[in-house]
């Protein structure tokens, strides 16, 4: 099983590298659909962001995609901070990090877990826009990642800036 997971993560590493090489800095928005099908098949329901998040996380952990996913919200409800532990894709992140450090490779920019959660917020709650803005930290030793995503319930939320760097 581990070899199969390694194999699929290696495929994703190659695809991330190729995409970045082809598209440069705007690659990460282009891959927002990668990963979404898992939760699209699970009938995620909810009427609030928190309900959607909780139901997504139940399926993600039950499916063995990650051991733990926690979240917090800030920035007038726009900023969604995700912390993901022991994700099935950690080997992909580790390989990309190694390549970046040693081979002039590509910084990790794609998180299928965040993508699938954001897609459910967009589609189920009819949000206007969602975006995985930043993979803040990938600790391959502890298996923990943290990400900062933005979710815009309405067009009026666009442009409500703040200082979220230390959140």
């Amino acid at each position: 099983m581990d070899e199969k997971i390694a194999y699929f993560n290696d495929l994703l590493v190659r695809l991330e590298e190729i995409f970045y090489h082809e598209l440069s800095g705007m690659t990460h928005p282009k891959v927002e659909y990668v990963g979404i099908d898992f939760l699209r098949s699970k009938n995620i329901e909810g009427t609030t962001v928190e309900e959607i998040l909780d139901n997504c996380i139940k399926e993600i952990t039950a499916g063995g995609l990650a051991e733990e996913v926690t979240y917090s919200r800030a920035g007038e409800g726009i900023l969604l901070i995700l912390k993901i532990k022991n994700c099935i894709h950690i080997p992909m992140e580790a390989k990309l990090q190694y390549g970046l450090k040693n081979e002039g490779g590509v910084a990790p920019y794609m998180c299928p877990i965040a993508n699938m959660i954001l897609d459910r917020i967009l589609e189920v709650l009819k949000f206007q826009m969602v975006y995985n803005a930043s993979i803040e930290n990938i600790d391959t030793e502890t298996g923990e990642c943290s990400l900062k995503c933005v979710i815009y319930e309405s067009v009026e939320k666009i442009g409500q800036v703040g200082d979220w760097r230390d959140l």
Partner: protein
Amino acid sequence: MADIIDLISSRRSVRRFTDDPVSDEVIDKLIEAARWAPSGENEQPWRLIVVRDPDTKAKIAEIAKLGTGGRVTAEYSLSDYWQRKFAGVKNPETRARLFKTMYTGQASEFAGNAPVVIVVIGELYDMFDTPYDLSCAIMSILLEAHSLGLGACWVHGPSVYPSIVKKMKELLKIPTGMGQYKLIATVSLGWPAESPKAREKKEFEDIVFWEEFGRKERP
């Protein structure tokens, strides 16, 4: 043949337009310019949707605002990228205005005020180089527009999100299958109501190597 370096170097990205209409004759010239762009294997994947309907332009503007504003709101709040980008703008009020233009998405919203928006899409099936071919077609449009005295600006940013592209495709009744058409950009154009200054350009010697990467001296 005429040297067109002056035409190329005097072109600006124009985002403000007068209300004066752009005639069919002029639009046809722009399409003709795109038609003669180079393409891989001469496949000519480009298809151009000319939009003049005010409601459709307003919806395009709103979708573009979502894409740019949504991204920049996050970038502005999470990093110093935009501070660095506008570091050369010394006037704080001007800087603040520029920031706001970006994070509100206004920077991409001007399609709503342009007399004409050309949505540039390309066939994907059986093609070789669609994104690059489309970029060449856009450059041809921009140069022809400039040569005719029009102002124009192309906006690619909002087209980077599949979810936003889907909104645009649904609005314009473009087939939404991922293997069908690529929507690469919109080109907003009209008679210019502004004369932007030239943007800072990298120096000649900063962008060229001779014979091999890194070799700066001309043989």
